[in-house]
Each structure stands twice: as C-alpha cells, then as structure tokens.
C-alpha cells in the first residue's frame, strides 16, 4: 500500500572519508555540517567472544578501567573533562565489540581525540582501582540478577553454547569476577587495545583536514600491536534435539525464553531471517540502541500471545553477531499463565510460519518498517557514528544498508524456507521461569 511513500534517500553512508594510519588505525570521517556537535567513537574488536573461562567478563571490566585514568588522564578525568564542556560520554561492551564515545560541542573535537588516544595507549590499571571496581562490577551483575528475564537469558545462552564464548554473559561469571587479577585484566587490555585492532569514527560538524591532522598527531605514535585474527577457535558442535532449562524461584509472574540457532550476520540467509524475525515479532531496527516505547502489534507473536491474553510482553532480539548466535524471544506471561500453555501457543506460531508463508500485508509492514527504521535508528550524530562503526567492526559500514536492501527483496516463500531451516525443534533452546511462593 505505502511502499512508495518511503523513498530511498536516507543516505547515512554518503560522503564518508576513510583512511588508515601506518599503525593500522582505521579512521572514518562523516561530516554533518548542520550539527552543532561532533561525536568521536572508537570501536575495539574485542568483546566477551575473546575471553576464556576463568577470566570471563574481562572485556567489560577493562571498559570500566578505561575510565580510571593513566598517562595524562587522572581517575575520573574522562567524565570531568567531558562534563566541563557539556558533552556526553559513555561506553559499552558486547559479545563482539567494545566501544567508547564522546559527543561534544563542535569546537571540542580535540578533547575526544585526546581522551581516546590516552585510553588506547596509557590506561594504568592501578591495583587499588581494580579492587574498587571489582565490587562495582559485581554490583552491576547482582542488579541484573534481580530480574527473572536476565536469569532466563543467561541460562539459555549457557545451555545453547558448549564451546563458544557466547555461552557466558558479557558481564562475566561471578566467580571469575571475584578471582580475576589485575594482571589478567592488564594483559587483556594490552593484547586487544591497539590501533590495528580499532576503528575510529568521527561524525558531526568539523573540518576534515584539521580532524585528519589531529588524529594523525595524537594516534600515529601509538605502536601497532600483534595482529589478532578475527576468527576464534571455538566451533560450536551441532545440536541434536531440543535443549531446555527450568528455573524455579520466588517471584510474581512466569517467564519464557526461546532461542533458535541462526548463522553469523554475514551469512546469505540473514536478510531472510531478518524478515522472518520481523514477521514473527516486529521490527525496531538492527542495532536496537534507540529508545522508543513503540510496540509493534501487527506481528504474529503479539497477535497470538498478547492479543490472546497469554503474555503481557513479547520481545524479539535479532542478533547482529560475528559468529553464529541465537534468535531470541522473551515472554512475560500474564498472571497465572503457566509456561506450558505459553510454550504451546508460541510453538504453534512457529509451526504456522513453517507451514504457511507470510501474507503480502505482513511483508508490506515489514519492509516499510525496515526502511523507516534506517532513519529512526540514525537520529543524530552519535547514533550515526555508532551505526557506521558497529557495522564496520562486524564486516563493513555498508552492512546494515546491504542487509535492509536485500531483506526488502525477499519473497514470502524464502521466509518460509528459512523458517523451516532454522526454526526447528531440534535446534531450539527453551528456558522456563516458574515463580514459586517465597520460602516454599
């Protein structure tokens, strides 16, 4: 109906300048002259997939330590310097990536570059600070443990992966957080934090010549590190039959998590899997960092489970990962609804899409939402830099655009075919959280 009202003029990738310093730091510059700010991001090709048992959570802990000073930066200076200018800064760690950013007034680009160059080269990992941060990170983990959905997700990933590091949570296992040493962390930092394992993105209002020269000045002296192959030596063995896990814990509601194995995002089936995911659970962008209370309601799972009075919430998470991962669904069940009946309803929808391809109206909604969300999830220079850098780390900055452009050409029959290929009983992992009365 409305395919023609959404044109294809959204041009995130137009006008990006790329260069690589001699030490291997890849730099992408995207000018947005209308902006009054500039956003500097640096993406390291390290995340929980680069960890080992015993030091799980090291990547995330390193991220915290990079706010603790070293070189010309004192403890807390990053926040103070950025705050002084009215800027914003933060960082995040995920399975495949660790990223840092500063968004500042447009004349303060140098500050963002200075912070990131010091972080890359000179973070101190002071022993006292490592100890102080240990409890902070354990507290972060314990805060998450208060949520049933977190516990279900953690169990599902741990059950799904027997060898691959996606098995543990990004924050790490608590025992590892209690025992990891300062040297473990510093070794992790030195191994992964160097220019040839990083991508810098600058987006906003700046003079590109001056920016290039400042980047050269601040980063070119940092030596290259050992080349780290992006491939890791963990190949998950095949799954033969459904895996399931049950949690019985005090609580007020029951929860259900269901995951299916899907290939890496660069796999040729990914565009069709995106459409499948959207038809089943709606679409809210590829990266999903954009905060919006919008709840897609035309999708099959919403209609069956929420309109069917079984669940109050159904969330679908489409993975954008380097390695094969999980298409993940979590359901918050209505009071008194048992996980057994929710499972039956959920699986009947999965069976339906395996049996019958999506209707034209479902494809229309999916395509229009996908096209629109390219713009929505790139609102402002910070999110644009994030999108460019995130995709560049995974494969190429063109990845998101290519995925969406390919996805909107997918036919209903192809969606049905990938549903049959990937949404099978033998490749699913089910997590049930049954609330029990406290003290029972």
């Amino acid at each position, binding site marked *: *109906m*409305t395919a023609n*009202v*959404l*044109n294809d003029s959204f041009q995130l990738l137009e006008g990006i300048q790329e260069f690589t310093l001699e030490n291997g730091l890849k730099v992408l510059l995207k000018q947005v002259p209308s*902006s*009054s*700010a500039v956003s500097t991001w640096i993406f390291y090709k390290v995340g929980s997939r680069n960890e080992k048992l015993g030091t799980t959570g090291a990547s995330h802990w390193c991220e915290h330590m990079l*706010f603790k000073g070293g070189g010309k930066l004192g403890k*807390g200076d990053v*926040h*103070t310097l950025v705050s002084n*200018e*009215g*800027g*914003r800064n933060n960082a995040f760690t995920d399975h495949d990536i660790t990223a840092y950013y500063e968004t*500042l*007034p447009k004349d303060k680009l140098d500050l963002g570059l200075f912070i990131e160059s010091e972080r890359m080269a000179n973070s101190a990992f002071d022993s006292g600070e490592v100890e*102080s*941060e*240990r*409890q*902070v990170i354990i*507290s*972060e983990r*314990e*805060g998450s*443990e*208060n949520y*049933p959905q977190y516990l279900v997700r953690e169990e599902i990933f741990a059950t799904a992966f027997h060898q691959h590091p996606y098995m543990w949570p990004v924050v790490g296992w608590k025992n590892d957080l209690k025992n990891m040493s300062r040297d473990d962390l510093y070794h992790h930092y030195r191994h992964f934090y160097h220019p040839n394992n990083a991508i810098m993105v600058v987006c906003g209002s700046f003079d590109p010549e001056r920016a290039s020269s400042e980047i050269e000045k601040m980063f070119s002296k940092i030596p290259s590190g050992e080349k780290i192959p992006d491939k890791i030596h963990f190949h998950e063995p095949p799954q033969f039959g459904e895996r399931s896990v049950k949690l019985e814990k*005090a*609580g*007020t*509601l029951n929860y259900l998590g269901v995951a299916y194995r899907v290939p890496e995002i660069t796999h040729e089936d990914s565009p069709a899997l995106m459409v499948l995911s959207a038809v089943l659970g*709606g679409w809210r962008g590829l990266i999903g960092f954009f905060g*919006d*209370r*919008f*709840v*897609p*309601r*035309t999708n099959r799972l919403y209609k069956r489970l*929420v309109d069917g*009075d079984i*669940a*109050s*919430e159904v969330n679908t998470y489409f993975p954008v990962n380097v390695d094969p991962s999980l298409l993940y669904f979590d359901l*918050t069940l*209505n*009071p008194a609804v048992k996980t057994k009946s929710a499972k039956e309803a959920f699986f009947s929808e999965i069976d339906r899409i395996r049996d019958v391809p999506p209707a034209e*109206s479902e494809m*229309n909604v999916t395509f*229009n*939402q996908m096209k*629109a969300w390219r*713009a*929505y999830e790139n*609102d*402002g220079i910070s999110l644009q830099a994030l999108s460019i850098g995130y995709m560049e780390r995974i494969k190429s900055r063109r990845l998101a655009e290519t995925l969406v452009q390919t996805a909107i050409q997918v036919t209903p029959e192809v969606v049905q075919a990938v549903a049959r290929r990937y949404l099978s009983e033998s490749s699913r992992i089910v997590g049930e959280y049954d609330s029990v009365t*406290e003290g029972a």
Partner: protein
Amino acid sequence: MGRLDLQREEYENGVALLSNRVDCETIAISGSIKAGAICDTHGSFGAAELVSRLLMRGTKSLTAGQIAQRIEELGATLSFDNRDESVGFSSRCYYGVLDNVLEIIGECLIHPNFPEQEIVLARNEILSEIRAEEDDTRSMASLRLAELVFGRYAPYGRDSLGKIEDLKALTRHNLADFHERNYLPNRLIIAITGGYDYDALRTKISKVFSGWSNSGTGKFSYRVDPEVSPQKAAVEMKHKTQVDLAIGTKAVARSSHDYYPFTLGNLILGRLGLYGRLGKNVRERRGLAYYSYSALQAKLFSGWFGVFAGVNPANVAKATEGIFEEISKITSKLIPLKELETAKRNSLGSLSISLDTSVERVAILHEIEYNGLGMDFLERYPSILERVSSEEILTTFQKYVAPDKLSMAAAGPLTNKELPTMPRALN
C-alpha cells in the same frame, strides 16, 4: 546555544501546537493530554492507565487491528504512555505520511470506543505489569518512597498503573466517562519537528482537532499535602540478590523560583559525569554500587527529589553513610564556584547536544509548552543559569533536602529492622 526556529499556534478550542521545521525527511512528534493518573478518583485508581492503553485499541471507525496495521504499514511508530499528570504520546514517520499519522492520532484521542474484549486484554496487561513491579526491587523502592513522601493515595504518591481491585471493577461505562470528562482539547499539546510544510501542518491539525469541544468537567488540579512526616520502610524480597535504596523528599514544582538552583545542585550532587558527588563517593571511592545517583522531578503542582542506589545487602549501611555524607555536605557548605561553573556549562552544552536529535529536540519543545516556559526560553536559558549562585543552591537544599526531611525506602533481601540507621532523628 543554537537558536531554534519555533512556531506556536493555539487553536480556538485550546489545542496547542509547537513546531520546529528542519530540513529532514522524517518527523518526530511528542504530545500530551492532561488526563493522567492525577485525574483518577477514589475507587477508580487505574482508569487513566486503562483509558490510555485503549486509545489505540478501537475507535468509532477503526478496530485495534486496523490502527496497528495502518501505523505500521506507513512505516510509522505511535505509542501512548500514561504518567502521573498526563498521557504522553510519541510518533515518528516520514514527512509524506504525516497527514495520515495525525488523522490516526486524532481518531485515537477523540473517538476511542473501548471494546469489551480490548478492555479485558488491556486490564490483564496492566495487572501483569503491577505483578512484575512487585517483583522488581527498583520499582518497589521508588514506589514505596513516593508513598512515604506524598501519602499512599495522593496523585504523586500512588502507582500510576492503578490499584488491582479498582482496575478489576472498572467498566466500559467508567472508562468512557473518564474519557469524556478528561480528554479535552484545551489539555492537548502537540510538538512536532522535521521536514513538514508549516501551512499544511496548521491546516491539517485544524481539520483533525477543530471539531472537538471542551465539554468535559473533569478536574485537573492537585493540592499537595504540605505535611507528611519523614518515614522509612523496607519491602522485603528475600529471593533477590541486590537491595535498591531510595531516599528522598518532596521538592518543587517546575514553576517554582527554586527550580533552577535545585536542578543545578542536583546535577552536582548526583548526575554530573558519572553520578556527580554521589558517584564519586559511593561508586568510585567506596566501590559499593554500580549506580548511585540523584534525580529531581519537578512537575506542575509539586515535585520530588530522590537518591537511588543498588547495593549488595551487606553494603547497605556503608552506602547509606556515603549518601548522607554527600547530602550533609551539599546542605551545609557552599558549592565552590568552579564546580558551579562546570554544572552551568554542562547544562548549556547538554541542551545544545540534545537539540541534535529530533526525538530529544521534540521532547524539549513539548516541555517548553507543557511548563509554559515561553517561546524565548532557549534564548533566555543561559542567563537564567548565569544568575544562579552557590548561596541560592545552599539555601534551596537546606529548605528541601535537609537530612531530617528525608524518607527512605529499600527493596530487596532485608527487613525493616535491617534498615540502616539514618544520621538523625528518623529512627
């Protein structure tokens, strides 16, 4: 700070439109109607919530399914969200479908028809959320604190989701009545930013909303009880790992003269950088909590101030000590000039950066209209901040946040007896 080209239009029936045109192919809308939980009456707590959830679930001319289908087919988003004062709505779309989206928003706000089956579903959804809140330490600490500060059944003190028994008793007639009394055009604000044509936008808004009259009689007011004694309470949740602490008090309305000193002091105490002074003390120095921050919510009739922290049960006393150290400091000593200047620069810079994204920009437009800040607010803002002195901040904090005015709520694996001693006569 960059100047925004703002246009304001108030229609005969009171609908207010605030807009900012920028060269951009998308549109962001942020709106509200003053028909939030404050309009709930005794015995029907939850009506505002239930009505807000039913706006998109069937109107005189569209079914719930048709509304969802139209919005999503247009590549648009739309959501309504009940709060304590108003029901907010937000939408995003491409400029080419703005008219269609405005028509749907108008249809939802003016002509909901509350189908029985949809009432059952929306009610169950709310009941489920209330049950989820009861198992959420952060929610429970905040809700309990609001009760302690404002009183259990006061508009700012109660859960805007409503009361379970009231929700169960609400009928279609009650909901339609609530809508008729409270959904009035002179309570509606629409803020829009993006690449629209201004004349076409004005005409469209007029076409959609001008036939709507102010015939309702619902009250929109709240006289905040001035005297609620500080208290403390634990919500025991043995099965949880972490305790959430919430310490706070009644604060100021957005229109109060004390608002700007309060907001700058709050920034310094618990927000600037990584949670301000509280973050430095509780997180950085003591290593006790992932989050420890303060918040100021200044509303139309009053507001609240709170400090929030998530800590291991063994560290509750130490974290409380750290929090009160900082509260004592900010209520007894002048903020050094340099720190105040940093806070001011941060406020200005942060507002400027917010204007870079359409979603944040439109939220600021909405706030300007909602709080009656004036069309020149963004230009006046630097001088407003400039005038705030350390002395004013000290006086304001002494007036509202003195330790003997604070209530404390905690949720998690601890009992009332295990609540820490607060450093003055609360115990």
